[in-house]
């Protein structure tokens, strides 16, 4: 059984993101880039499934410019067996991303596709769901626990009301949440070995996918500064204050 894992290059979560002065996006030059933290958890989970004897191969894939290979190397150093780089310098929106993963799935025939529930750059939270729909595979999103038994996956997912347990037939798409696992530290000898693992490069066209951007970003602005709050002494005062502001 193969597992395909999505890995996205994003601005490191420690960076204080700055909006460009002309509003055309955020500053990425000279900024530290890393693997999307949710994807790191997805890679970790795939490795654990493999180490438990429930899969033979972990394939990591990314879509983006040449520099994304750094994140693939990190995933290989963590323990993935091989990597696929779908190279493009264009912005890739969720639907195109999902179509590309569908094409990769047709090619590689994995039993599980593990994706982050969202990427911390655009926070779209769409790719896994779209991929599930496009491939007509069952989907289990926001996984906080994954158990594989034969041809089924039991997934505990975090929902507003608490925890929900799903049983899905494989092949399936699973998107992972923060509490699923704690990704391992990568050992230096494994970092040194990562370079020798296979990394295949292809274009979006090679996969027969058309690159489309349905959503157009008009302008990027920084969120407004939060105003200082006020303290009230009683519920009555609170209700009055809320009414004055037209909030209730």
């Amino acid at each position, binding site marked *: 059984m193969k597992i395909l894992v999505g890995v996205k290059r994003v601005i490191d979560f420690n960076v204080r993101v700055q909006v460009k002065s002309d509003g055309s996006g955020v500053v990425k030059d000279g900024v530290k880039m890393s693997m999307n933290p949710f994807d790191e958890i997805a890679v970790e989970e795939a490795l654990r499934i493999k180490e438990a004897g429930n899969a033979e191969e972990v394939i990591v894939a990314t879509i983006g410019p040449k520099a994304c290979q750094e994140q693939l190397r990190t995933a290989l150093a963590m323990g993935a067996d091989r990597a696929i780089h779908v190279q493009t310098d264009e912005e890739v929106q969720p639907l195109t991303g999902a179509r590309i993963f569908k094409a990769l799935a047709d090619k590689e025939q994995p039993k599980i596709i593990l994706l982050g529930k969202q990427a911390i750059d655009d926070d779209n939270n769409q790719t896994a769901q779209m991929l599930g729909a496009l491939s007509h595979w069952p989907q289990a999103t926001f996984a906080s626990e994954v158990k594989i038994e034969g041809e089924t996956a039991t997934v505990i997912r975090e929902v507003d009301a608490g925890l929900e347990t799903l049983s899905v037939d494989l092949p399936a798409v699973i998107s992972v949440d923060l509490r699923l696992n704690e990704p391992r530290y990568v050992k230096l000898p494994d970092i040194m070995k*990562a370079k020798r693992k296979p990394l295949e490069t292809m274009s979006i066209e090679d996969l027969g996918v058309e690159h489309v951007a349905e959503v157009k970003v008009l302008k990027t602005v920084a969120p407004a500064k939060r105003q200082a709050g006020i303290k009230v002494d009683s519920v009555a005062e609170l209700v009055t204050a809320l009414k004055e502001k037209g909030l209730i």
Partner: protein
Amino acid sequence: MNSIYFNEEHTMLRDQIRRFIEQRVMPVAEPWEEAGSVPREILQEMGELGFLGIRYSAEYGGSEMDALGSVILAEELGRSTFGGFAVTVLVHTDMASPHLDNFGNKAQLDKYMPDIISGKKIVGVAVTEPDVGSDVAAMKTRAVKDGDHYVLNGSKMFITNGVHGDLFFVAAKTDTSVKPSRGITIFAIEKGTPGFTVGRKLDKMGWLSSDTAELVFDNCRVPAENILGEENKGFYSIMRNFQNERMVLGAQSMGEASKALELTMDYVTTRKAFGGVLFDKQVIRQRLASLASQVEAGRQLVYHAAWLDAQGLDCIKEVSMVKAYCGELVNKVMYDCLQFHGGFGYIRESAIERMYRDARIQSIGGGATEVMLEEVSKRMI
């Protein structure tokens, strides 16, 4: 980090060490300061991750990276805000064990290297004596040949990892009839060898989680096979190893300085005073910007020296500059960073208070600034 010096492996190594230190060290290291030592489990965990064998042969579990790997380790350790923890590791990886790596024979490497790289055995280096520091050649500890053994007498001062370490590379005089620099030999001596004791544990101003001791040799018999490298060539081994030691101390200093500036930026951009935040004061902004520029320059000099080393080029002048410049700069940075923390900077619970104390040794240990500048000046004429 965009840099001409670092490749993908370097960057990954830096990411892993930084994460390890932020998660496994910084939240729990406060008690190590009180205990006066770093728990062995942490060192072994670092060993398992390959952080203790960055440069060493893969045959023994190392990763065969170049000098820039050591610089990354030192910088990231410096960023931990616990200088004592940082130096515990760095003495093991980059100040003591290079003696074995550079000059050990096959049998010695086979015997010790795997345990050093895995963190099972912690090592130290013993050169300084109560009466002799900068003037290495003048050391007094004697090793007299007796059959197939040597008998050591004397004591070694300020030895890092001295209390808890397992194995020491000890310099002693084996020939007093020649020029002082021509009669020194290095011995590998294990804790527990009869005649070798820890004289006393020393109380320090900073580096509190690092154990520092006086080591005493009283008719300590050491087999001749424990000699590292050639007999009477020890002075040159020490001088060679000083290069790496000074480079990593410079890197550690710049890691410490960078972290101090970040902590201070957090403080002055949130601390309210005079109708704004402290950072609104031009004098504060300007001073921090000036220090940040100097730290960046220091860091690039460290990288350059490490790069020269990685190319196999002579870099004694550059390394001496690194040690002199970075050792002084980190003190200047700590002084101002503590100043901008106001009264809080003087209180034990602030990291900057500890970092200020930890920094003081950087212009003395491993080569005092004045001694380093002498080395630079010799190469200027």
